[in-house]
């Protein structure tokens, strides 16, 4: 990956593009690339929908190689939802194809002077930026069907739905999967609205004629890859649980622990949890001829995704993830998997973040628009978003905006972004991450990648409150590093438990890149990424008082444990210092 494609959508004669070498961005990939570019080139106080903001689309350092699990794509910008720096991450085919085409990044800059929308087509030989208003307000599914007709079955698409075109702050960016369906989303933070502000509806990527990227040391690479695969497959989480049940296997356990946010974070357990669990979902999928085991990108050996068919055995949506099932399910008091799957389909089609939309609907229920448990009502609210009605525009701008519009006090957001599917009163450490993450409330920014080899957790006393700040900090650092590689975060489980698998990952990277990275180097990369992000946020006006959870988490006890969030503000301030 030796070039960056810059497309200025605001050229005087129309969109202009150029390819440049990496220069200052040499050696960067994924989140390292997006965060570095944004922190250097985007004025932190700019309006997120303005010409000054940029949308950076970056494959990971290992994407496009034969390394397994290396297909994650990072998309970064200043977030319209939070106002902070943002990196949203998606699976699908785009990362590996862009990497094979040689692009370390595509950067969308400027803003069109008119309200035309554009289609960008990239192949081995050309880049074309074409006006195509016939695509206006198409849902992602219809859009991709058109692109398939025009360009064939092997292309991949990065696209926005009507929510992105309408510049809603909950808008996502879709990436097509192996079956060319728009099911993988860079969802959080409204990145889709920025793409919409740039006037870009779809980027079509065709890597025909491009070879897989070659490692510097092919023999060592092959051996490391084999060891890495073996480690992933022998681990109970990555080799068995996730392939069998997907991420939604978490529902029963989180519910049992009393940390399953229910009815807009009022309760910690949902009586209908078993009806919407991953175990139940997998059985239903299989009984309807769908799949409970499916990979979102070529080279995935964990295969945590699946295919969800409707009652008649016809494709409806990809297997809804834990976060989606929670957001549209337990959080809203809904225990109907078919209704949740229908909402997942609508989210993908309209191009919105399922977490943000589920929490938003929960806030709408809190406001009395519809009762908790009203599945049909929830589906209808989502349809308002797709239509862009006044109500839909309120909802489509997220939970904080909806809460303000309806005078709701209890709005579970940090820096404007909705909290994900774990109550911070039950798992206080995740609350530390929600509060302090540079991205707003985010459950993946402090992931369990770290091992004792990274000196994480080994010296922490589980009974001491201050252990959580240190843990959260180190987890955020290591997650940021992994996000730079293009590797799926679910490699975390075998790496956490199996030192030989972590070594295999280091060997894989070193044999491909021709480097001698150690775990310390990985941590340094992560620290650099976080420093850049934190610096951007400070310059954007964020101070320590923004690194806080909503007040009700400290005041309202949560059953069954009768606890509140009791990590002090001083501890939170220490996390990213």
């Amino acid at each position, binding site marked *: 990956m030796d070039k960056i494609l810059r497309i200025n959508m605001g050229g005087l004669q129309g969109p202009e593009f150029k390819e440049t070498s990496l220069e200052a961005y040499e050696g960067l990939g994924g989140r390292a690339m997006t965060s570095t570019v944004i922190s250097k080139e985007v004025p932190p106080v700019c309006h997120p929908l303005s010409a000054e903001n940029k949308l950076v689309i970056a494959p990971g350092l290992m994407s496009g190689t034969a390394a397994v699990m290396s297909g994650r794509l990072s998309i970064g910008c200043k977030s319209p939802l939070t106002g902070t720096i943002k990196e949203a991450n998606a699976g699908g085919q785009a990362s590996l194809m862009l990497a094979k085409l040689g692009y370390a990044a595509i950067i969308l800059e400027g803003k069109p002077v008119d309200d035309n929308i554009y289609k960008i087509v990239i192949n081995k030989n050309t880049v074309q930026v074409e006006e195509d208003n016939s695509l206006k307000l198409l849902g992602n599914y219809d859009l991709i069907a058109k692109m398939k007709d025009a360009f064939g079955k092997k292309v991949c698409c990065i696209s926005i739905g009507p929510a992105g075109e309408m510049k809603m702050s909950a808008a996502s960016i879709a990436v097509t999967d192996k079956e060319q369906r728009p099911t993988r989303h860079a969802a959080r933070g409204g990145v889709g609205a920025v793409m919409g502000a740039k006037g870009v509806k779809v980027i079509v990527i065709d890597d025909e004629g491009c070879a897989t990227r070659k490692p510097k040391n092919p023999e060592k690479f092959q051996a490391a890859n084999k060891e890495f695969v073996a480690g992933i497959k022998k681990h109970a989480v*990555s080799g068995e649980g996730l392939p069998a049940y997907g991420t939604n296997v978490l529902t029963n356990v989180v519910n049992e*622990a009393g940390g399953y946010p229910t009815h807009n974070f009022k309760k910690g357990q949902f009586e209908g949890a078993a009806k919407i669990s991953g175990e139940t979902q997998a059985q239903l999928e299989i009984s309807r001829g769908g799949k409970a085991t499916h990979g979102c990108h070529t080279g995935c050996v964990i295969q945590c995704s699946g295919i969800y068919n409707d009652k008649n055995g016809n494709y409806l949506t990809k297997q809804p993830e834990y976060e989606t099932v929670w957001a549209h399910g337990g959080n809203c008091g809904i225990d109907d998997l078919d209704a949740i799957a229908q909402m997942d389909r609508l989210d993908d089609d309209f191009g919105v973040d399922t977490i943000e939309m589920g929490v938003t609907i929960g806030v709408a229920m809190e406001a009395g628009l519809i009762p908790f448990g009203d599945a049909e009502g929830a589906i209808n609210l989502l349809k308002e978003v797709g239509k862009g009605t006044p109500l839909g525009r309120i909802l489509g701008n997220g939970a904080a905006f909806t809460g303000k519009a309806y005078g709701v006090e209890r709005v579970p957001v940090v820096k404007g972004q909705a909290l994900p599917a774990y109550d911070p009163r039950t798992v206080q450490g*995740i609350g530390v991450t929600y509060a302090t993450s540079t991205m707003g409330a985010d459950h993946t920014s402090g992931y369990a990648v770290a091992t004792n080899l990274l000196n994480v957790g080994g010296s922490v006393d589980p009974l001491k409150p201050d252990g959580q700040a240190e843990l959260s900090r180190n987890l955020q650092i290591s997650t940021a590093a992994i996000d730079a590689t293009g590797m799926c975060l679910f490699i975390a489980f075998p790496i956490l438990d199996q030192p030989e698998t972590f070594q295999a990952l280091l060997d894989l990277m070193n044999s491909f890149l021709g480097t001698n990275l150690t775990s310390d180097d990985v941590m340094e990369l992560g620290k650099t990424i976080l420093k850049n992000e934190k610096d951007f946020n400070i310059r954007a006006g964020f101070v320590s008082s923004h690194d806080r959870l909503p007040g009700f988490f400290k005041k309202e006890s949560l059953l069954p444990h009768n606890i509140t969030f009791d990590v002090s503000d001083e501890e939170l301030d220490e996390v990213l210092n």
Partner: protein
Amino acid sequence: MSYNQVTIKTIDLLPFYGILQQGIAKNINPGCTLKQLLCDQFNISPNYIETRIKTAFLNQKPVDNYDSAIVHDKDTLALSGAMPGLVGATFRKNSILSAFRRNISYRDFVAKKDASQNGNGKITIKLFNLLVNEIGPGLLESGILFQSEQLINIIKTECSKKESLFKSIKINGVNQFLKNDRILCNFKNDEIVFLKVQLFQYEHFFNGEVIT
């Protein structure tokens, strides 16, 4: 206390997936450690406990030490394999991330209060993740206490299908006609029955009759 006995032979445990997750009631001798309960009373091997039961909750509290946690009458026990995600890893026994959930972790000092309890008792067991298929059959085969109303619903739903998974049902040792709408109607709605579910081997089924 004696219960009416229901024995179901089924070719798949699918109809019972929901109840294994929601919780099944088992008679136990309380006052033992969790490890003792699993090994001695449920016949689960120590190696399996060590390698497969990575997450356990006792009354919604994650347990780190199965050798010191005490199981009492009326407790709720939930068992799972290793879970994904940061939070999933947090709940694992002896997790290096256990600090994240320190406020809800099971503490031995709570257990010592009435460790001298013995005699007969009942607990509710929930199975999650891969353990549904791995431990579920054994627990169901050894027998569980079950509400008749819930059982009637399961039987009616399954037996109304064109191809039912249930191959035989016995009540107090007497074979029942599977398509009988009034099956179990003699039981009161809030009655507890002793239910055994046996996985049926298909090759032992011939001409519509069970060959034992």
